[in-house]
């Protein structure tokens, strides 16, 4: 079987790094795997560059760094967790922010609150303004920002809420393996 020269191995290492793989463990595994496939490809004919390009492209769907994100994702998902789409995440966030205030005003509207609570509205109003309005405006701006501006949570991101990591954002369609 063809054996790659040290320069070719170095070249593949640089390509792997240039594609965003930073975990040493993953770099080593990919390097060995790609080298084996390239050596096999060279046996069947073709130049090193052609074979490498073909092999490299078969390693991922969109970007190679997806592998690293998947690796980090899988090693961080421990214990109960909840994975939400961006839309759901914001709906939940809005709901959590708004629900106490909405509940209060609903009860007030129905005259179900004790008389003593009549003094509260101004306080509630101020807190709504400070604690809710501005965060909601900020979130709305993020929500409606076009994807090309790389907002805080990209449009196709998945947001994971869990014990291991309180909140994590993933830029790809993360698969929950087990």
């Amino acid at each position, binding site marked *: 079987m063809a054996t790659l020269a040290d320069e070719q191995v170095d070249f593949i290492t640089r390509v792997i790094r240039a594609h965003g793989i930073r975990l040493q463990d993953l770099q080593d595994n990919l390097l060995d795997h790609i080298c084996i496939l390239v050596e096999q490809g060279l046996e069947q004919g073709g130049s090193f560059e052609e074979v490498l390009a073909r092999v490299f492209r078969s390693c991922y769907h969109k970007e190679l760094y997806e592998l690293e994100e998947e690796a980090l994702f899988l090693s961080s998902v421990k214990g109960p967790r909840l994975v939400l789409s961006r839309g759901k995440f914001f709906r939940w966030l809005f709901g959590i922010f708004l629900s106490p205030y909405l509940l209060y005003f609903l009860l007030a509207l129905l005259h179900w609150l004790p008389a003593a609570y009549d003094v509260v509205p101004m306080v509630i109003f101020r807190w709504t303004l400070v604690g809710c309005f501005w965060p909601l405006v900020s979130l709305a701006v993020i929500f409606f920002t076009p994807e090309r501006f790389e907002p805080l949570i990209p449009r196709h991101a998945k947001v994971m809420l869990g014990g291991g990591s309180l909140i994590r954002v993933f830029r790809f369609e993360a*698969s929950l393996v087990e």
Partner: protein
Amino acid sequence: MYISHMVYSTELLKGTLKTIVLKLLADNKKMYGYEITQRVKEITADKIQITEGALYPTLHALEADKLVTTEVEYIGKRVRKYYSLSPAGKVKTKEKINELTSFIQTMTLLLELKPKTI
């Protein structure tokens, strides 16, 4: 999940990759990544092909969970990483296989299937 397949859908294979890898490591003392992909292809007659994108993140996760131990071999400038089961991994493998076996039996019952060889 990056499992390319000839017969089975991704949904069907989802959740079985860890079990597959653990079982292979239980049957073989130590294996490296490429070897695992080839062994799966060979056993399943090409019906399941595990890609790099599926395998290495899973191996990374198994190592983080301390279910596998690793040793490296230097081949020129390359590092070949061999994986083998840790004591915790051996226990986990049994659990996973029992769970999957029970699941398959339940599905066989549910769908009124007759077991058939591949």
